[in-house]
């Protein structure tokens, strides 16, 4: 799928937070690519480092968190070392972002039309009236009825689902080549979730936008993602095409994750849970971080950290499950 040059390319990305207990690594040496029009789902429990990786890409890590190692390329240009205004120009223009909660993502005191035009004017060299025209078009595109009138409304005059549509319009209005969607449906009513995912997917497919879809919801992944990356304690556990990873997981953690998720595709299999909880970053076990919870762990697992993933697909496990293994 990524035959041509990828839109986003991350190599060995490491994010560090210095604390008084030592240096924490919420993201620890991850690498992946996202191609044109491709949706890469990033899954994992809370605290696995999913959002932190997204914030690193768009350059919005809140200090003291910082990129300590690795490279980020967008559209072939290295961006991880960019600062200040150079990085600002990329945000919105090259990389768009959709946040979790549409209720808090929009400035309550500004009309949504103003928020759209200011974004367009910040990146595109167009007149104000042209920007306003594009703002209406953008609202129209995300399926807001009566866009021409609604442009003068304040955020509180929209429902949650409609607000998330506005947020998507805002993220896409300067036509970025990459969208980072951080839990875009978590705060929404279940009935609206599918619509928003479908909308995001359709818009990005039409424009060829690459999507980094961060979520803990396997259902969303199954529905929207082309490939999926599973994160555990800051590292990539498994990466591969969504069908393979969901139906034939090779990393025991992914296996456990699948076993604990109700998916229609798997029929009536019993749900399992993974014993224990993800370790805190300041108390990581030695070797493979998953080994204390892994049913297949052997001596090697507590001694050596898991193998790093090659650029392509696979599982970061010394003893991956065989390809034809049934889901636990």
């Amino acid at each position, binding site marked *: 799928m990524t035959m041509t040059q990828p839109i986003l390319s991350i190599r060995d990305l490491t994010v560090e937070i210095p604390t008084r*207990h*030592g240096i924490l690594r919420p993201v620890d040496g991850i690498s992946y690519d996202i191609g044109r029009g491709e949706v890469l789902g990033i899954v994992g429990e809370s605290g696995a480092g999913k959002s932190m990786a997204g914030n690193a890409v768009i350059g919005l890590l809140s200090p003291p968190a910082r990129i300590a190692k690795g490279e980020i390329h967008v559209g072939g240009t290295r961006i991880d070392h960019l600062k200040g205004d150079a990085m600002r120009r990329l945000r919105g223009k090259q990389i768009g972002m959709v946040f979790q909660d549409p209720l808090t993502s929009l400035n309550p005191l500004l009309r949504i039309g103003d928020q759209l035009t200011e974004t367009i004017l910040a990146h595109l060299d167009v007149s104000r009236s042209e920007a306003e025209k594009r703002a209406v078009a953008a609202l129209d595109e995300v399926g807001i009825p009566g866009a021409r009138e609604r442009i003068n409304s304040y955020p509180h005059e929209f429902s949650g689902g409609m607000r998330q549509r506005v947020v998507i319009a805002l993220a896409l209005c300067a036509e970025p080549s990459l969208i980072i969607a951080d839990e875009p449906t978590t705060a929404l009513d279940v009935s609206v979730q599918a619509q928003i995912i479908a909308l995001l997917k359709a818009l990005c497919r039409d424009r060829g936008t690459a999507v980094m879809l961060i979520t803990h919801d396997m259902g969303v992944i199954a529905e929207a993602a082309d490939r999926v990356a599973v994160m555990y304690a800051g590292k990539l556990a498994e990466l591969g095409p969504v069908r393979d990873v969901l139906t034939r997981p090779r990393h025991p953690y992914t296996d456990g994750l699948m076993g604990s998720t109700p998916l229609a595709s798997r029929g009536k299999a019993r749900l399992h849970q993974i014993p*224990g909880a993800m370790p*805190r970053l*300041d*108390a990581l*076990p*030695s070797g493979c971080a998953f080994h*204390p919870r892994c049913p297949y762990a052997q001596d090697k697992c507590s001694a050596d950290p898991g193998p790093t993933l090659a650029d392509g697909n696979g599982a970061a496990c010394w003893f991956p499950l065989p390809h034809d293994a049934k889901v636990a």
Partner: protein
Amino acid sequence: MTDTQLPPDAPIAVKDPSRLSLALQSDFIYTFKRSPVAMISFAVVTIMVLAAIFAPLVAPYNPFDPASLNLMNGFSRPMTPNAFTGDTFWLGTDDQGRDVFSTILYGMRISLFVGAAAVLFAMILGITLGMLAGYVGGWTETIIMRVADVQLTFPAILVAMLIFGIAKGITPVEYRDQMAIWVLIIAIGLSDWVQFARVVRGATLVEKNKEYVQAARLIGRTSPAIMLRHILPNVLGPVLVIATISLALAIIAEATLSFLGVGAPPTQPSLGTLIRIGQGFLFSGEWWILLFPAATLLALALSVNLLGDWLRDALNPRLR
């Protein structure tokens, strides 16, 4: 990073309350040790409080004992032997030959006493009314909180002045000086109870509906017992913070009232009264009579303020 390994089944989500409070306490001490500002201001406050309590022992002279005064010593410059008597005073003397250092110690005593007593009064009043409002509700609550709201629209210093003025009008002339200190305490205390009442009421409303309070009620505990045993401990943190900041405000309020001539009488001068007296000598060049009491007041108020600031941050991690 620590080497401690979590056992595979460690239920991290479940918190052991005793361990939690331990961690909190160690954090409390930890941030204290890490904050030079907190430690210095704590030291300054401690020294000043001790010096004020033991003023009769620490002070080289008793400024209120006419026998120990020598008018010849008047207007001695700091650290300079007096031209007539050859006596040396660290911080100089005022027009009547009173040792400024000693008057400051005694003045600080009155300032601190009035400030602390006023805050204590405000605290007791505020906690009682706040709990009553939160626990009883209904008309009691409406009246208490409406009075609080109205009072809050007026600056505390104005309320204190007004109460002082009214009290002065009620007290017979011959008792006014004697009563002044107590009137001050009541005036400042009455002007400052609202903060306490609001916080305590809020916390009471939250706690009242929790299961352990309901349980206490079921096993037949009386309302006052429930409020004291169960609700009071939960509001001590914020109350402590407000009390510290209120203390700084009360000390400043007392000094202001005394400076304006509607506070501590000249027979019992607080720091504010000393500054009022010293202001008269500023133009004639005897700066020390004003400067040293002023610096003492500033150091005291600033240290208490800094301590309160730090305390608020330490007890409220969200704001850090």
